[in-house]
């Protein structure tokens, strides 16, 4: 009795298991990357050039945000969730509406001659607008533009915008440019 010794566990494969685990974690951990909304600021202007041609009213999509975080879009109050559709309609102008932006006819690679809207989105906010609201508005505009681009690349190339080649992306971007102008800060309502 008691003659049976405890057999030694073969530890030779332990390293393999360890490496397996290591690789598993390496693959599955998503590193904490910072994310955000990318925008481009306009370059500083020293003096307002005098002979800037005025932009036609129909080509401007005015969005005002007041200190109560309410939206005034083209003179009418609007909820944030309706903004995407409104922006899309403004950019595309499918019915050639007189109140929506004019179009330029231009030659674009891959697409041939296309009509490109002249619309500009003008965004103005109050000093007391909440940052979150402002970001939401920016977000909705980006969403509108991204969806339009996505749509176009699906229709034209049968691929998602992200999968397109550089040149193709550029062409899509030319058709749906990101034209958001932010006015110099003002106090709109309140304070």
């Amino acid at each position: 009795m008691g003659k049976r010794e405890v057999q030694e566990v073969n530890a030779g494969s332990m390293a393999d298991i360890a490496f397996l685990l290591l690789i598993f974690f390496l693959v599955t951990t998503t590193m904490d990357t910072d994310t955000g909304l990318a925008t481009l600021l306009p370059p500083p202007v020293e003096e307002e050039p005098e002979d800037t041609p005025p932009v036609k009213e129909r080509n401007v999509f005015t969005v005002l945000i007041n200190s109560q975080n309410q939206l005034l879009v083209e003179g009418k109050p609007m909820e944030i969730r309706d903004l995407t559709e409104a922006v899309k309609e403004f950019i595309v102008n499918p019915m050639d509406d007189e109140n929506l932006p004019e179009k330029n006819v231009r030659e674009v690679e891959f697409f041939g001659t296309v009509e490109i809207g002249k619309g500009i989105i003008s965004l103005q906010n109050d000093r007391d607008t909440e940052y979150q609201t402002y970001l939401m508005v920016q977000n909705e505009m980006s969403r509108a533009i991204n969806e339009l681009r996505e749509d176009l690349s699906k229709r034209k190339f049968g691929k998602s915008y992200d999968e397109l080649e550089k040149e193709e992306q550029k062409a899509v971007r030319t058709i749906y440019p990101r034209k958001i102008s932010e006015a110099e800060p003002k106090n709109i309502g309140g304070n």
Partner: protein
Amino acid sequence: MAKFRKKKSGGQQAINTASLPDIVFMLLFFFMVSTTMKEVDLNVIVKPAQATELVKLEKKELVTFIYVGVPAKKYQSLYGSEPRIQLNDQFSTVADIQSYIAQSRDNMSEANQSKMIVSIKADKECPMGIITDIKQALRKAAALKLNYSAAEMVADR
């Protein structure tokens, strides 16, 4: 006595620890890879804003951060409870931004200088006034690539 000896010989064998280094190394590697080093301690409280159309900031060396928020509790007696700007480790004012940008631009390699991205990490309840001031300062400093830091929106709209 005899009984004692017998018990000892029949006792448990020592566990083979030959693979322990492997395990330790594995853990070491894991932590080395997955930890993102925290470069600055936040002196302001930043509750991240949320959005959906997010872009990843992949190249860390291109990014310069500006933090905006209400000072943390322990600083409130000194700096008040209005949102403040934090650059590096200190509370700053809008006037400091230009030199801060110039300084971080100098720290970059020449090829990267034109690709510099400024990321504003602001509290979601922070008023836009201070952000607008920062934006104006950034324009003056010719740092035009801007990223509004935001987290992925959790609930559906």
